[in-house]
Structures are given as structure tokens and as C-alpha cells.
């Protein structure tokens, strides 16, 4: 791949530019410091936690690596090739942070399992009629690890005016297998996917925390092809944030949407219930990454192996969920 050396160059350039030795006039010779050390220095020193709002903004993200220096001069916006805008994400994070911290009071364990660099496929259980888990996971990882997360989701979003554009700018990408491959394999980014899909979010409250089938295992195949690990995440709290009490098949068919729920939130708050979640306590557990012992970039992978791995991951998440629920004393206080 011809892009790779170029990536390295720019990264080094970024490091030099924001190196903290302000008084120093001559730039350090390249052999004076290890590139790795330099990245550490950048991480710690260039982010002043006391600066207003800065704690929410991750380190200069490597996405501009896709740009030649010449392009950097020309570009007026910061929308990357995936439609994501770090500036817009920063605003979204600022708005969402109080919800994350004081409404859902999200708490993570096992965050060290999320790779600090390189591509990975994050997968999680999916819940709530209008999913509350995706924003929590994306916000959490972006603020805690300072790595962007691309949320793979239904094509449907892209078709909607305004919503589709905002969705793409805040990191949403249509869940096309080739998009996932490029994100993780070529661009070495984190992608988030919910293998249950709409079956997870459309399920009845009485079925809470029971994982549905993980599609047809496509997510495993994509991770294998991209040569990246799968990082499973078990999420507790989303189910209670917007529980579905009834479903109308007829209305869903009429409106041409996957499901039409009547949620407890709607009963409690009326139409505003579409946007107001119950303040359930969110707990997220990152399970050890699953690496696959197969070569990347294959045309196809044995169906049996794919299904077996998918099922294994599903079981692991299911077990983690039961384990977390065993120790949960209260839906609201965790």
C-alpha cells in the first residue's frame, strides 16, 4: 500500500509541531527521541484539562492523515472521507456530556481491552426503542480513549434529509461490508456495530437482556477479512432507558419502518417520550478482544467457522450481561 509511509510522515510532523518544548529554537534531531515517546508527550502535554471545554475534545485525531499537505491548505471544512466532522463531534460531545455523566452516569470496566491504535470492530448488545446505547458507547470511547468511533448503521439514515447529514457528520456510516472493511483495514479506525440490528431495539421489555440472533455472522467475516480483532461490549441500562410495552405491526407496515413501539416513555411524557429516556444507570463492560487465527483479505471464510465464532461472542456477551445483572441492586442506581 503506497499510503502507509505517507501516514507515518504526517504523524511525525504533527508530533513535532505540537511538541511542548516552546523555548527551544532548534527542532530536535529525529534520532534524539523515539517517535513513540514523542506521541506520549503529545498526549499528556498538549491537552490542558483546565482549558474550557478542551477535556471533551480528543487529541488531534489522525483522520487528516488521508490528506496531502497540499489538501490541508485547500480544505475549508474538516469533514473526512467518511462524512465525519471532528468539529461537529466536539459540539455533540459537549452537549451530550451532561447526559452521559449525570443522566445515565455511565461507568466502564475493561476499557483497556479497546485497542489504543489500529482497527477494531466494537460490537455490543442493542436495546431501547430509540437506541440509547450507541451514543453512550461512542461518547464514552471518544472521551476516555480519545479515539474516534464510527457507528455503522442502517442505510435508512442516509436517505433522510437533515437527519442523515447530521448522522454522517457525527460519525455514522452506512453498514455496507466494504465500508466496514475500509474503515478498519485501510484507515485503521474503530467501527461500532450492533449485530442484533433492529431486532435488538425492537424487542419487548419482557425480553430485556435476551440477546437475539447475531444476524448471519457477517460481522465476524468482516473482522476476519479486515484482519482486526472484535471487541465485545456488554451494556446494562439501555433496556430500561426506553422500554417497549406494545408494538403495532400494522402501523409499522403503514409507515414502512421496522417496528412501531409504544414505550413507557411515551406513556409517561406523551410525544416528548420519543426524546426523553428514563435515567437508568449505564454500566458497560468491555470483554477481552477476540483475535481470529485466519489470514485477512480472503474472498470467503468457512461458514461453519464464522457461525461458530459469532455464536461464541454472543454467548460471552450474554453471560457478561447475566453476571452484571446479578450484581446490579437497582435499575436507577446500579
Amino acid at each position, binding site marked *: 500500500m503506497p499510503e502507509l509511509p505517507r501516514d507515518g510522515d504526517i504523524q511525525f510532523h504533527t508530533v513535532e509541531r505540537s511538541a511542548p518544548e516552546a523555548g527551544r529554537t532548534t527542532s530536535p534531531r529525529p534520532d534524539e527521541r523515539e517517535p513513540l515517546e514523542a506521541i506520549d508527550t503529545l498526549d499528556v502535554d498538549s491537552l490542558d484539562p483546565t482549558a474550557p471545554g478542551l477535556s471533551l475534545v480528543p487529541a488531534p485525531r489522525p483522520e487528516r492523515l488521508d490528506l496531502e499537505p497540499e489538501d490541508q491548505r485547500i480544505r475549508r471544512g474538516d469533514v473526512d*472521507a467518511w462524512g465525519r466532522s471532528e468539529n461537529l463531534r466536539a459540539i455533540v460531545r459537549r452537549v451530550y456530556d451532561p447526559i452521559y455523566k449525570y443522566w445515565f452516569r455511565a461507568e466502564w470496566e475493561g476499557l483497556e481491552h479497546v485497542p489504543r491504535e489500529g482497527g477494531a470492530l466494537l460490537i455490543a448488545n442493542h436495546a431501547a426503542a430509540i437506541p440509547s446505547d450507541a451514543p453512550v458507547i461512542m461518547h464514552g470511547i471518544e472521551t476516555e480513549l480519545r479515539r474516534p468511533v464510527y457507528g455503522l448503521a442502517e442505510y435508512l439514515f442516509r436517505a433522510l434529509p437533515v437527519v442523515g447529514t447530521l448522522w454522517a457528520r457525527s460519525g455514522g456510516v452506512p453498514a455496507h461490508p466494504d465500508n466496514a472493511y475500509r474503515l478498519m483495514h485501510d484507515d485503521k479506525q474503530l467501527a461500532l456495530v450492533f449485530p442484533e440490528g433492529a431486532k435488538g431495539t425492537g424487542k419487548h421489555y419482557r425480553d430485556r437482556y435476551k440477546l437475539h440472533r447475531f444476524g448471519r455472522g457477517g460481522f465476524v467475516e468482516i473482522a476476519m477479512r479486515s484482519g482486526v480483532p472484535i471487541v465485545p461490549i456488554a451494556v446494562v441500562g439501555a433496556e430500561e432507558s426506553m422500554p417497549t410495552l406494545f408494538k403495532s405491526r400494522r402501523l409499522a407496515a403503514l409507515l414502512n419502518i421496522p417496528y412501531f413501539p409504544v414505550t413507557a416513555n411515551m406513556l409517561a411524557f406523551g410525544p416528548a417520550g420519543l426524546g426523553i429516556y428514563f435515567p437508568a444507570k449505564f454500566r458497560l463492560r468491555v470483554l477481552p478482544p477476540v483475535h481470529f487465527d485466519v489470514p485477512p483479505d480472503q474472498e470467503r471464510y468457512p461458514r461453519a467457522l464464522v457461525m461458530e465464532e459469532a455464536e461464541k461472542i454472543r454467548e460471552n456477551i450474554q453471560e457478561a450481561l447475566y453476571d452484571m445483572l446479578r450484581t446490579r441492586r437497582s435499575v436507577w442506581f446500579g
Partner: protein
Amino acid sequence: MRILVTGLGTFWGSRLAQQLEQIDGVESIVGLDTHEPRLPLERTEFVRADSNYSILERIVRATQVDTILHTHLIVDSTEISGRALHEINVIGTMNLLAAAGAAGSPVRKLIVKSSTLMYGSNYKDPYFFRETMPRTRPPRTRVERSLLDAAAFVRDFAIDNPHMTVTKLRFSNVLGDDINTTFSNALRLPIVPEIFGYDPRLQFTHEDDVTGALLHATLQDVPGIYNIAGDGAMPWSEVCTIVGKRRVALPPVLTNWAAEPLRMLRVVELPPEVLSMLRYGRGVDNSPFKRAGFRYQYSTAGTVDAFARGLRLERAVGDKNPAYKYERDVETFFRHSPAVLRGDA
């Protein structure tokens, strides 16, 4: 190398012939079209043909060309009526390939200039089409259908003639100082149209990279289908910002109807395939042709920037490319003036 260029009267045909004339290895260039070349050409021979090339077989036999550059696929449906477009793209290509593949044909290489338009533009599309990926929705416009039909002919031709090098280049939207495309026309307007609520990712190819890519395929052997697009992808809003234009929104529903008055008032013509581009955009993977040895001069951003510079210059001095004209005048002087001593210098 003996080369036949179809569509010599089009922008691309003339451009390409002009560049081929500079190359030493090119013995002779024969150009075919219904109307005369747009640029002054020195040693290219122009043959006036009907639009579907019925005399082509005779020309191929008589001139013994070994390379055919098929630049005459119309991708801008505003240029021409639907029927004529079908005639040129489908029937023209069919006749061309029949002549090139006839028994005893001297042709060894065929290069077709096509468009990424054939991928369509739909919300189910991948963000970067690979050459192997089919479109996600059947074509609805005549120009897209005609390109797909032509593509099928080219594919069959490649299968039937395994001894020939068949290259098909699919170009993304082109911008440049000299070429007029729907997008360049839109970007020249004082206020640029967009569709409310959509801000699609787009890619652009610079006109110099178009001729560059066609020349690369002519001089090297790169059989296969390749996407051509400048690196990167950019939202339409940012394209407008770089060019320095404000935007006006067309409604997201009944967009075709809303675009109709613009066409009738001759402000700008936005055919359905362009409107769906303004909604969902399109991206293609350009890496295979880079791996085949081609170096782009312009990225997508660079293309837009170069276009914006040309536009600013035009606004200031009233001419898109003043240096170019000057050069041509000088060339004409050196070529034809009796004051110039020719022969040995």
C-alpha cells in the same frame, strides 16, 4: 503506434489528439467525428463520419490502426437529445467494436472513456465503489442505461478478443478551466443549487488527469476496468465554499419539478442523475489505477481549488485561461508566418 480517436470533435477527442501529436512513438493519428475538431491539430487526420461509425471498418482496414481510443461516450445528458445519445453511446460503440473485432483486424488495443455515472447514486451505495461492484439500483435515466449497454458490449468484446488489450476507464465528475460539465456550470452560477438537508460526498477529476489517464492507458498496457477520481472526497457545501459561492436549497421532495424552472429559464440544467448525485453523492476507489502506475496531478480538493483559481482569474480578466490563448497565437505565428525561417535553424 497508429491510433484512431473517436469523437475528435469533442473536447476530449481534440485534447487527446493534441497530446498524442507530441509523442514520438505515435506514427499517425486518425480522428473520427461528425463535426470538426475544436482545437488546432497539426498532424491528426480528421475523417467526417456519421455518429454511429458505419464506415469504420473500411477506415480501420485502410489505415491499419493498432490502437483505438473511444472517447465518444456522452455522459452529460444535457448536451444532446435522448435519442441521439442512445445512437452515439450504444449503436456507435456497437459498430466501433464490430469494426475493431472484424476478422483480420489490425487493432491490438482498445481504450474506452466511460464514466462513474454507471454506478448510479443511491443511499444503499458503498462509500467507495470498487470496479467489481454492481450498482445498487437499476438505472432510471437514459444516459445511465446507455452507458451500461455500452459497457456490456465492451465486456463482450474483451471476452471475444483475448489477444487485445482492452482498457475501460470510468471517470468521476470532471472540473477544469476548459471543460464545461453540469457541475462546472452549476458552480459558475452566482448562487449554487443544493438539495435541502443533503450534503453529499463528491469526488472530482481534473481535466488534465483525464487526458493523463487516457494517455497512460495508451502508452502502457493496463487491461481491465479502472475508476479514475482525485484522491479524497468532499461535501458539496465545502466545494461551494472553496469556489466562494453561496448555496440555495431545492426542496428534498419533488426536486425534479423544482429544478424544471431552472432549466426553462436556462439558468442551469440539472438532469435526474445529477440531482441524485446532489442527494447521495458518489465515491469510487481509485487505487487500482494508481497501482497500475498512474500518478494523479490533482486530488479532489486540488481539482476544486484549481477550478476556483481559474474562476477567480476569469472574473478579474474576463478569460479563463489567457496564457493558453497567447501560446496558441504564438504557435500559429511560428507555424504559418512567412517571417519565420523554417527548415534548419
